[in-house]
């Protein structure tokens, strides 16, 4: 894991000198984070994950001069990765892994009886996560695994923070009953 100073130095080398070795170090440092998010979104399609992750880093490299708020490089990368997945899904309409992001509005009652709120009976946490629609999976992954705040998740996904909270509430309901089984 890079310190903030190391990260800033590498970004500065990429911007000022087009230093590809420095960019390689950034890729190495953040590849696991990006690939983990994409694994969650693509339901563990490793070949697709590698392709999308590479596209993510190429886009980051091309846009690194326009990076604002250098201290949020990881958030910026995750945002590119998330939108790369969304673009890929839109290009391949037959893939039904994505749902309309407007399906969860803060004004909507949470107990609307849809299947998203049903408790998980499966004992496998990974399976439970995979049952969530893609945007909810991303939100859950970023909040519980990466420790992102609601505001940062909102930045990454482009979803309103109320929608992020709504997704988290649904995910919490689905996952809470697994706690005792897994002794956490």
């Amino acid at each position: 894991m890079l310190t903030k100073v190391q990260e800033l130095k590498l970004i500065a080398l990429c911007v000022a000198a087009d230093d590809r070795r420095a960019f390689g170090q950034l890729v190495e440092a953040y590849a696991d984070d990006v690939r983990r998010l994409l694994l969650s979104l693509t339901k563990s399609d490793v070949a697709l994950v590698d392709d999308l992750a590479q596209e993510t880093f190429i886009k980051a490299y091309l846009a690194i001069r326009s990076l604002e708020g250098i201290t949020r490089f990881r958030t910026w990368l995750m945002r590119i990765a998330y939108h790369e997945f969304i673009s890929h899904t839109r290009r391949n309409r037959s893939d039904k892994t994505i749902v309309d992001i407007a399906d969860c509005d803060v004004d909507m009652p949470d107990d609307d009886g849809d299947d998203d709120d049903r408790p998980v009976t499966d004992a496998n946490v990974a399976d439970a996560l995979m049952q969530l629609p893609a945007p909810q999976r991303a939100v859950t992954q970023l909040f519980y695994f990466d420790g992102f705040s609601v505001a940062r998740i909102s930045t990454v996904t482009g979803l309103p923070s109320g929608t992020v909270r709504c997704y988290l509430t649904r995910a919490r309901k689905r996952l809470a009953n697994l706690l005792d089984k897994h002794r956490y």
Partner: protein
Amino acid sequence: MKTDRHGISDTDRRIADMVRGEASPVPRDEWFVNKTLNRLPPRCERILGLPEIIAAGVVLVISGTVMAVETRHLLQLAESTSDSVADLNPLMLLAAAACALCAALYLAIPVLKNANP
């Protein structure tokens, strides 16, 4: 539900532990960095630095001055007002013109290449 100042409840903390504990590891790919770097587009054309621009500018000014002086002598010769034919050096005029052309191209080509990749 009791939450801390970050809005995270005890249930959230326990779910986070569970998710992290049960998450399957990211598959290792030791060639991922190399594959990514190989897919990067070729490097941009070198953009002229300040010393190069100043040097080319100086060459342009000197060449321009020499060309102006020599051209004036040439015109004076045509009007038979020049004191001496030795004032005219056609080679110097040509050399100055060539220097000016080279300096102008040196400045213009990288800019045009970057403008129309």
